[in-house]
């Protein structure tokens, strides 16, 4: 256990970096998800097509391959940003595709009468979506979106392969210095559970608060 106790500050820094990476990427992914989901239900055909292409591309590319393309490829076209910014960009674009699908499935669960009523009192498409449909859709997708945050936190480990020093790279680096690898692994596992378990509990809490009977 000394291997863990001697390196508590390294674990703390790794945990902080993973949290920072996950939270920033999650906020951007939510925004991307909102935009793409509204594209996909919009009356404007080219926007629907663009939304579909976005989702199909980013849901089907392995995250590692997307990271490699961005981190190694983009500097070749003159785009050089920090590794952390690359990681946030890649993670949020990838997760955004899944969030838009979650939101869209939520939109589909809202009773048709809701949108019909909104239209019949003269709301426009944008108003119908923003004021009536999305607020109800959001309540039904708390659980999937919570799981997506957890998946994002886990996926952020892939940034360790591309020069971001978060939890997984902390583990990787410490195993080079210390002989006791198993305690280090346990320490890393505990750190990940410190993120995923509260996130799961928070999801369940929010879901109970916003759930409503139809």
């Amino acid at each position, binding site marked *: 256990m000394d291997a863990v106790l001697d390196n508590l500050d390294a674990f703390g820094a790794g945990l902080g970096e993973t949290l920072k990476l996950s939270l920033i990427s999650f906020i951007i992914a939510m925004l991307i998800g909102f935009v793409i989901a509204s594209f996909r239900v919009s009356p404007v055909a*080219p926007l629907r097509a663009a939304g579909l292409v976005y989702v199909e591309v980013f849901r089907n590319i392995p995250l590692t391959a997307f990271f490699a393309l961005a981190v190694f490829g983009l500097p070749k076209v003159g785009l050089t940003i920090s590794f952390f910014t690359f990681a946030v960009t890649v993670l949020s674009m990838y997760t955004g595709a899944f969030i838009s699908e979650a939101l869209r499935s939520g*939109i589909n669960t809202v009773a048709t009468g809701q949108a019909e009523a909104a239209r019949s009192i003269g709301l426009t498409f944008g108003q119908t979506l923003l004021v009536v449909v999305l607020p109800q859709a959001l309540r039904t997708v708390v659980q999937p979106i919570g799981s997506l945050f957890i998946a994002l936190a*886990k996926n952020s480990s892939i940034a360790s392969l591309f020069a971001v020093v978060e939890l997984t790279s902390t583990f990787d680096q410490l195993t080079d210095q210390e002989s006791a690898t198993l305690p280090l692994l346990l320490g890393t596992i505990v750190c990940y559970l410190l993120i995923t378990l509260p996130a799961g509990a928070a999801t369940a809490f929010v879901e109970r608060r916003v759930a409503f009977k139809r």
Partner: protein
Amino acid sequence: MTTAVLYDQLGPRGRRRVVLGSVLAYVAIAGVLVAAALQLEEKGQFESRRWSNLADPELAEFLAKGLWANVKAAAVAMVLALVFGAFFALGRLSRAAVVRVPATAVIELFRALPQLLLILAAAIVLPRYGFELPVFVYLIVGLTLYQGSVLAEIFRAGILSLDRGQSEASYSVGLSYGQTMRLVVIPQAVRRMLPSIISQLVTLFKDTSLGFAIGYEELLRRGKFATVSFGESLLQIYLLIAVIFIVVNIGLSRLARWLEGRQQRKYGAAGAAATVTGVEDLAVLDTK
């Protein structure tokens, strides 16, 4: 047409707006594409020597072997994960707490961890304890633990989704727990779970590219090697790899959807409505 409900059959003004919106959208999309193309052009990424390398038969063969390594890893991990999943799902459903509690703990633990960490841990920890194995094995271990736990939850949800009357009826004609599971519950549950299982297997294929992390020579790792000898085609090689993965995965997803549709036609919409969705990995969230 689930989405059409958000807007009315358009009137003349609405149609004009949509036309205007479409034009603006086309202009915006074209603008993005042109800006990207100009940037690529400025950095000389359209020069033919950079692209002609992709037609090199040696490179094609080198990368094809990489893709084959992905397929191999996916196939082996799939079989093991299915076995792992079935075993622990039944364990978690067991009525004996000595079986149920550890099975639950194992599933919940591995599901909560990044796959990459499990793969790295296998590659780092196992050799320290005297298990010097090929990287292929480390990759399989990591994939199996994670995907197996996710599959276990899919199996469990499938079994629980079955109407209790089925097992009650089976007990009432005198079948044992084992017989009920084997003859009544599992055959029906598997049918319902099939679409979710297949989408999880598509995810599994995608995740074999994590072998990159431990030097397993799959497509992405081989692509990185290739950029050493074809340095001028670096961007092109990574683009090619991304396209290969996307095409293969879309193909596999289509296959999954086709199977789902076939199942609906065969067993009626009721069976499809009860299909288990979304235990974890979110390829499952897909609808149409």
